[in-house]
């Protein structure tokens, strides 16, 4: 499967809210596809987009009474590192092109709302979906929720659980421990 087809493949799965991150976390690449070793294009450095990326992150994951916001946990710096190092040049170009259509300012929240709606609208044709936004949203969530402060203070990370309880009664409204992640 070539990468363009694989992006379509992933986008057809989008909207299925319960799929585990494993299918998506490898950078829009389905499991069976080998890493493309022929991709030798120069990588893009997203440092110059730090302010815009931080603002997008804050719109998606804003500070509230219950949470620090994306900016407060330096999510933008983490996001830049991920985009610089963990995406193929083809994926980077796609994200860069998408970012070019956005500017950091008052209208940004409205633009994000449009992108989010278009991306998750089942009637949007696959080739017209803003795939860059889906990739960005995933990387923003990863940057934020794997932050030390978020993991240990907002959620309840336990490094060595020491025991297992598969039938633990919880308040469904309570924030959850990030089990299953980190392995």
């Amino acid at each position, binding site marked *: 499967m070539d990468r363009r087809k694989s992006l379509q493949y992933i986008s057809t*799965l989008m*909207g299925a*809210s*319960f*799929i*585990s991150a*494993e*299918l*998506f976390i*490898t950078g829009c*690449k*389905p*499991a*069976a596809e*080998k*890493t*493309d*070793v022929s*991709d030798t294009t120069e990588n893009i450095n997203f440092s110059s987009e730090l302010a815009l990326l931080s603002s997008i992150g804050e*719109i*998606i*994951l*804003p500070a*509230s009474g219950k*949470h620090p916001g994306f900016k407060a946990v330096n999510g933008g710096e983490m996001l830049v590192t*991920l985009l610089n*190092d*963990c*995406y193929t040049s083809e994926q980077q170009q796609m994200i860069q092109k998408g970012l070019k259509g956005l500017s950091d300012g008052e209208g940004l929240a409205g633009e994000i*709302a449009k992108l*989010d*709606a278009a991306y998750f609208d089942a009637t949007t044709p696959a080739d017209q979906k803003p795939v860059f936004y*889906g990739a960005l*949203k995933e990387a923003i969530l*990863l940057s934020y*929720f*794997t932050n*030390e402060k978020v*993991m240990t203070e907002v*959620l309840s990370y336990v490094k060595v*659980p020491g*025991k*297992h*309880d*598969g039938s*633990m*009664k*919880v*308040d*469904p*409204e*309570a*924030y*959850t*421990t*990030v*089990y*299953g992640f*980190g*392995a």
Partner: protein
Amino acid sequence: MSDIYINLDASKDMTYNAIVVGSGISGGWAAKELTEKGLKVLMLERGGDYRHVRDYNDSSVFEREHRSKATIAESIIRPDIVTWMQKEQVMKSWVDETKEGKYTEVKPFKWVRSYRLGGRSTLWGRQSYRWSDLDFEANAKEGIAVDWPIRYKDIAPWYDHVEKFVGISGSAEGLSHLPDGQFLPPFELNIVEKQAQKNLAEKLNGRRMFIGRVANLTKPVEGRLNCQFRNRCWEGCHFGAYFSTQSSTLPAAAKTGNLSLAVNSLVTRVLYDKDSKKATGVEVLDTETNQTYEYKSKIVFLCASALNSTWVLMNSATDVWEGGLGSSSGELGHNVMDHHYNLLTYGRMEGFKDYAEFGNRPTGIYIPRFANVGNDKRTAYLRGFGYQGGAAKADWSRGSNMPGFGADFLDDISKGGDWNFRLMAFGEVLPDHSNKITLDRENKDPWGLPVLSMDAELKANEMAMRKDMMEESVAMQEAFGAKDIIRIDQGHDMGHGIHEMGTARMGRDPKTSVLNSNNQVWDAPNVFVTDGACMTSASCVNPSLTYMALTARAVNFAVESLKKQEL
């Protein structure tokens, strides 16, 4: 673990009672059993040192530069490493093709290699099941390939032997085609899996599902602690809670004082003496200095992983047999097998919002084979398949696939989501002569040695089986009570199951098999092959426990034969 047993300058001592090639699951067992029986053993590992505890990763995800996400730079030099294997903290465990060489793909193949001390014993899935006569009799009953030269009764005592040492947690289920073993207490199903287990049995005529049997301790044993529920086995377990060469067989072998071990030692060939028709030792290439050495021994155990053990044979005694040692049958390199997978279903389990799971269990559920078992007859294909998987509560990562943003969105995904059931099928691959590996003499590895050429694929039987694997998976999700069932079939390149088997099969006749019933090479009886290469068929059941049992059995035979001066 001390440094004492690691004799990195093994070249001073060139003669041993036995040489073990490879330090993974099979090599570790060979070394343990041989040294405990009093033989002076040299274990050779082509990769570098990787020491218990000292070299393990203990970082939390937030301490990692890329938060567990593999970089592109690390990925492009390891094109076979995908999905769960592709994590920042384990990338360096896998073979870097720019350093170790590529292989040739006549047909698409994935060869997931780890070249370092302990091999893939530090990276395995730890699922441990006995094979049965459903497996050992299948070839003969169906007229496929050749008959296994052993039956369950021949290997059962050796399953007992290895299980007692390894520490397998599991539940006794009384199934004749997935025999019970020497179990530690089982891990526990979670609340959703318990409900699904009940529903499955009710809706599908008593179909069985139970907790996966794994080589993770639920009780401490000597020198090892029980599992602490981190589920970070692949990064190395400081507690020694899962079975690996490092945690288990290597310390046992070292304790005897009979073990020497050399790393960075690539075995290039078995030395064969035409007059005695036996091996005299092995030739070793020091991968750091490029110098070659010859080590002598009475017996050689090839445990270099299925395809590499066959590679060594193909490079050996080529002055006698053009195709190498063991090629006189015409079967060396043939009958490549694997377990075909990459076939998943997900289903959403309603209710249970007020339940969560604490701790990371190192195993999931297992659904044993039911197709073509007993009165169940499938007309479209031979053999069968099993399932692994389990139920888990969705975490924040579900937010990537959900519309929305802002404070309410953040609040929502910080809470636990729905429970989802995941089923992954593992199917049997039939032995087929046309599925083969050969030496590619045109393409060389960094040491100038010929690389392997892979020419193997799924055939009609597997493709027909895959359709049924998906239909049954969906039917079981429905029986669980799951909603919004999603099917994913990504296809399967041979090797991707990381259960590569065959290429030097056991058999009853030197004309049609490479090894006899005691894993001896017919053409050189003091050479034993006890890793995945020896398998005559593939079952649908995870194979590592069977490699361990066959290795211990072969060692026992070898040592008894040495005592009787028959080798």
